[in-house]
Structure formats: C-alpha cells, structure tokens
C-alpha cells in the first residue's frame, strides 16, 4: 500500500516536471513551425538583416535586432558601474545600518512593475532629453537609461550575493594582514566572486534583451536602422507587441515568429554561457 502510494506520487511529480519541460520545448517548436513559411517565401539571410516594409513585401527584422542590441547593451553599460558601486557599498564599504537600508531599498526596487518605470520615463525623462539633447526624445538613450534602472537592482543583488559568498576566512586573513575595507574588497572578494558576478551580468543582459515595455514606451518604435543613441529604434519585443494587426496567415504576421526565434536564441545563449562559466568554476575549485 505504502509502496504503491509512493510510486503514484513519484509518477505524479515526474509528470509535473515533464510537463514543465515540455512547455519549454513547445514554445520553441511553435515559433519554428509558425515562422517556417517565412523562410520559404523570402531568402533566409534577408529576414535577419533586411528592412521591414510589408507594402513592398519585405519582412526583414534586421533593424529590430539592431534596436534590441543597442538598447540592451546601453542599459547594461550604464547599469554596470551603478551596480558595482552599490554592491561594493553593501558588502564592504558601508556601515551595518546603511547596508541593511540599502539592501531593503534594492530588493524593493526589484518588485516595481516595469510598466510604471516606463510611465514615469515617458513623462519625466523623454521631455528632458528632447529639450537638452535634441532629437525626438523617444530614443535608444531614453529606453537605455530606464532599462538600466530596471536592471540594476537585480544585478546589485546578484553581485552582493556573490561577494558575500566569498570564503570568510580569506577575508579575515586579509584583515589580519592589515587590509582595510576597500583593499579587502578589491584584492580578495572581487577576484573570488568574479564568476558569480559575470553570471549576474549575463543574466541581466538577457533580461534587458527580453524586456518589452520599456522599449515599447520609450524608444519610439521607428523602423529605420539606428545609428546613434539619440535615434529612435524598435526592439524585437516591441515589434511583436505592435504587429498584432495582420492576417494570421500572412508573411507579415509570421515574421513576428522570426522575432520570437531570435529572442529565444539570444536568451538561451545567455543561459548556456552562464552554465559554461559555472562548469569552469567548478573545475577550478
């Protein structure tokens, strides 16, 4: 009786796990199947690099890939020093009370909905950029800045956890040798935590690539290939959100699935890179 209960339970749990894994593959599968006619109709290369002009029969998502990469990389470049500085203060440079307050503030920020960041960005940031830097206001820069603020709290948490996970005896040894806070941080903690920090960086990049609302609300959604940060751009994610219009059988709509494939590819690549780094670190340890 007990043994069969056990077996049933195990089977139940296994089917849950299996179902979840199937969902992951199903998403990819659906993208490929529904996007497939696109690869038949037009040349494979032009999909990824060409421009988007349905009237002319062109369904290239090149500008969108460029838009996504511009915005995501800008966001991470802005976020990196912010996150490093904040995590340094949280894990070493600050006093105990300050650390707690900062940590709580950062954790709270991770819970702020994305749409609210976008909302404030539209009314606060865009007019500023438009007046003082020129251009349309809605730009890669606007989206990049707000996305950086969105991504920083998660990166800070990652960096802080990695730094705090460093072997305390190493830190104590450095302290015994006379190293002050900064020195312990720079020469002992960071080098040991660099693997975890890189993981955090890459996952945050993945998050920035996958974000929809910030780019949709702040980058202007123009169709041209962006050339500088003040240019408007359209990300892959915003493109999917905007092109609900068409015919479910049309090539225009199916190009949305090509966007889905590109996104799936980018974020899966990030996950794989992180796993490879993790394995290397295990090898070293």
């Amino acid at each position: 009786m007990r043994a069969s209960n056990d077996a049933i339970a195990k089977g139940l749990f296994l089917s849950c796990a299996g179902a979840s894994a199937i969902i992951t593959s199903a998403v990819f599968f659906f993208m490929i199947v529904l996007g497939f006619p696109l690869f038949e109709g037009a040349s494979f290369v032009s999909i990824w690099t060409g421009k988007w002009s349905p009237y002319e029969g062109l369904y290239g998502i090149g500008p969108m890939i460029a838009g996504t990469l511009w915005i995501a990389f800008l966001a991470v470049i802005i976020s990196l020093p912010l996150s490093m500085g904040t995590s340094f203060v949280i894990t070493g440079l600050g006093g105990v009370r300050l650390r707690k307050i900062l940590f709580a503030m950062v954790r709270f920020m991770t819970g702020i909905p994305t749409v609210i960041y976008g909302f404030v960005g539209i009314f606060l940031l865009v007019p500023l950029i438009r007046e003082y830097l020129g251009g349309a206001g809605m730009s890669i820069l606007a989206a990049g800045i707000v996305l950086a603020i969105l991504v920083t709290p998660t990166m800070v948490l990652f960096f802080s956890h990695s730094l705090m996970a460093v072997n305390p005896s190493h830190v104590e040894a450095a302290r015994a040798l006379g190293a002050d806070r900064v020195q312990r941080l720079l020469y002992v903690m960071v080098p040991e935590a660099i693997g975890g920090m890189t993981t955090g960086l890459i996952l945050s990049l993945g998050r920035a690539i996958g974000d929809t609302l910030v780019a949709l609300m702040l980058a202007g959604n123009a169709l041209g290939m962006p050339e500088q940060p003040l240019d408007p751009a359209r990300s892959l994610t915003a493109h999917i959100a905007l092109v609900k219009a068409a015919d479910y059988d049309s090539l225009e709509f199916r190009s949305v699935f090509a966007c889905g494939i590109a996104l799936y590819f980018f974020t899966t690549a990030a996950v794989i890179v992180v796993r490879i780094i993790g394995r290397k670190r295990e090898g070293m340890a």
Partner: protein
Amino acid sequence: MTRSVMEKLVTILSWFMVCLLCSVFLVFVGYLLLKGLPAFDTFLVFGHVKPLEAILGQARVFEGLFPAIVGTVYLVLLSTLLAVPIGLGSGIYLAEYAPPSTKKLFSFFFDILAGIPSIVIGLFGFSIAIFLHKHFSGTIGPCLAISAMSLAFLVLPYIIRSTQVALESLPNHIRKTAPALGASRLQNIVYVLIPRALSNIVSGIILSIGRCAEDTAVIMLTGVVATAGIPSSLLSQYEALPFYIYYISSQYADQTELSNGYGACLILLGICAVLFILAGCVKKSLAYRSLHRI
C-alpha cells in the same frame, strides 16, 4: 602609488553610485506620489457609480479602475491556481526524486524557460488561442483563460526553483529522521520536509503572484482590452491594471485620465509592495510556527 589612487577612486565612485541610485529611487517614488495622490478618491476606482452598487454588480463602472482591478485579481487567482500545483510537483521531483543527470537536464530546461522573454510567452499563448479557435471551437479566442494559462507558464520556473531550493536547503538530519523511523518517501515529504520548507515555498509563491499582477506583455497578446467591464466568464476578454497604465500613457484624453493613470500606478505599486512585505513576513512567521510545533 597607483594602487592607493585606484582604491580611493573606487571608494569615491562607489559612494557616488549609491547616491545616484538612491536619488533616482527617491525622485521616482516622489514624483509618483506627487502626481498620483491627488487622484485618490472614489471617482478613481468607481467613476460615477456608487461603490457598493459597483461591488455588488448592480451597476457598471465605466470611468473607474474597478473593472481593471477585478480583472487583475481574477487573473492572478487563476494563474496561481494553475501554476502552483505543477510548480510544486516539479520542484519536489527535482529535489527529492531525480537522479543527478535527470536533474541537470530538467534544470537546464527550466533555466531556459525562466529566460524566455515574457512577450514570447505571450506569443505562445496567442498561438495556442488561434490554434484552438481554428480547430476546436469558434468561440475560443484570446481571453481570461488563455491569459491565465500563459501567466502560469511565465511564473512556473520561479515556483519550481524556489520549491527546489527550499527543500534542498533543509539540513540533512531532518531528512533522515522520519525514514529512520519507518516512514515512506512520500510520508517523509508530506509530513516532514514540506512543512519545514513551507515558509520559503510560500514566499516564492507570493513573489510569483506579484509577477502575475504586474505583467503586461503576456496579457497584451492574450486577451486584455481597454474596455471590457467585469469578466463574465473564463472565455471573455477583460481589463487589467498594468494594461490600463500602459494604455493611458500613450493615449490619455484629458488631464483627468492622466491623473487616473498616476493613481493606477500608485495602486499597482501598492499591491506589489504589500505582496513583497507579505512574502517577507510569511517567511518569518511560518518559520516560527513550524519550529514551535516540535
């Protein structure tokens, strides 16, 4: 010499970054409060209708946030109902039953699922809706049920991961006690391990609830609309708070609507803050209670 210069630089820059981040946070919250608090009255939520009548369903609310709030509540309830059993089961399997190679494989899959952008999940849900529409019944389209299902996909990896981590972080001696007394694996899980890990599991579930409440990309593609009233069935379209905020930001007709938008931001922020604090409290209180059951 250069070493100490670099150290000083790092110190100064780090403090500068902290100040920058804090001021951004304060400006952000301050601006929302400034613009949103003036909008807080019954008109914001119920429009021209009396609150009691709206709640009892006797009168329809056209200008207020009530339908959006109800839509969000239904959405969160449904998606949590769908995601929790499967997520819990998967997490238990990974933590307790899976052999190491299977565990690695599944973990890999779930990491990928966690990394999939929300709009892609929405697209997936939308394709399922169209598929069902074409091959099963013409009445099925993007709707509350499809959205709830898609949101469940979205938060599934988080529930799995928090359940798995919660169970795996239990100390070994607790794991071994019940089996040593003759309990089966299942009994061990149900009567010993889960109650112990419950606080962390519930905390993970609450954070997933927050994720469902705030998500916009998934619902945009799977059934949310700007004007729908209170959803009458699982197959109907609905309104939701985050979508309302997005919609207002791009097309507000007058200052009242914009004001309402800020008010909606505050309400959504409030909901997420409450869930966040709740998750923290649950962690502490359940841990306390389960320890005192010994």
